[in-house]
């Protein structure tokens, strides 16, 4: 498996995981009623990647909305990334937020406080 991709829907984000390049992107909205079901394949893919990770792993998160049901699953994804980081792949998480979206910036800072991986807060124009 070299690439893992999921097309976005009105309630779930577009996910693209380029395993060869070590680049994971999550974009769009994450507001499913059952987020555990949605995120499980990604967590599994990260588990697999952790056994043969690239020297560097770049993670781009650009969410417009996410619900509290997703927030714990996103933390699970970040915990996997933290383990990959400890395992020797230099992980960077780029957390994107729109310039007037303080709630999204704060949400990124919450994760940054919990997860021991370099975070970059990236402001994007609306």
């Amino acid at each position: 498996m070299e690439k893992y991709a999921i097309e976005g829907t009105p309630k779930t984000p577009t996910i693209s995981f380029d395993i060869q390049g070590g680049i994971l992107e999550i974009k769009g909205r994450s507001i499913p009623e059952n987020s555990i079901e949605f995120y499980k394949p990604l967590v599994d893919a990260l588990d697999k990647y952790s056994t043969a990770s690239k020297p560097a792993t770049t993670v781009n998160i650009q969410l417009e909305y996410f619900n509290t049901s997703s927030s714990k699953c996103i933390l699970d994804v970040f915990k996997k990334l933290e383990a990959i980081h400890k395992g020797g792949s230099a992980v960077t998480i780029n957390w994107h937020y729109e310039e007037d979206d303080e709630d999204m910036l704060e949400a990124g800072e919450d994760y940054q406080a919990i997860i021991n991986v370099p975070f970059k807060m990236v402001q994007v124009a609306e």
Partner: protein
Amino acid sequence: MIDAFNIYDNMDRNNILLSFKGDITSELLTSILQIMENKMDNMQEDSKTKKKVYNVLVECLQNLYHHMDDATDGNGDKNRSAIFMIAKTGGSYNIITGNYILNENIHGLKSRLDDVNALSKDQLKDYYKSVLNNGEMSLKGGGGLGMIDIARKTGEKLEYNFLEIDNKVSFFTLIIKVTQPQLI
């Protein structure tokens, strides 16, 4: 005969933008969110307001969706029906939800709401982070963050009421106020 005018007039006087009574399904939530997004676009709300209202709507509606399983109405019949309304008055949106709740579950819910209402902005932030990271995940995936998140994003107290219907069930009403950011 049903007095439609009475219902219309009541909704009109209360500035109701959208109201729904019935079974809360995943498809319904998708539709309501879409309708509200379009409405706010048409009303030319600024993007800050749209985001706040949308976020809080998602949490309120998904609370209803997840917590109606045990609901029983006043006649003792299983009833997944609930009411949902969104009103706009002056510079704020009010999101109102109502559903049956078993009397035995009132105490737990009430103390959770009171706990959240007792916290300051900074305390809510810390509480959110500790619940986020407590490793527990409810079967429904919520993990108890919904109310904390709503209180944090709105900066308002959660207003609620339990109306006792009989010795088994009560009707739970939750009112969430979202004040337009530029007016704070």
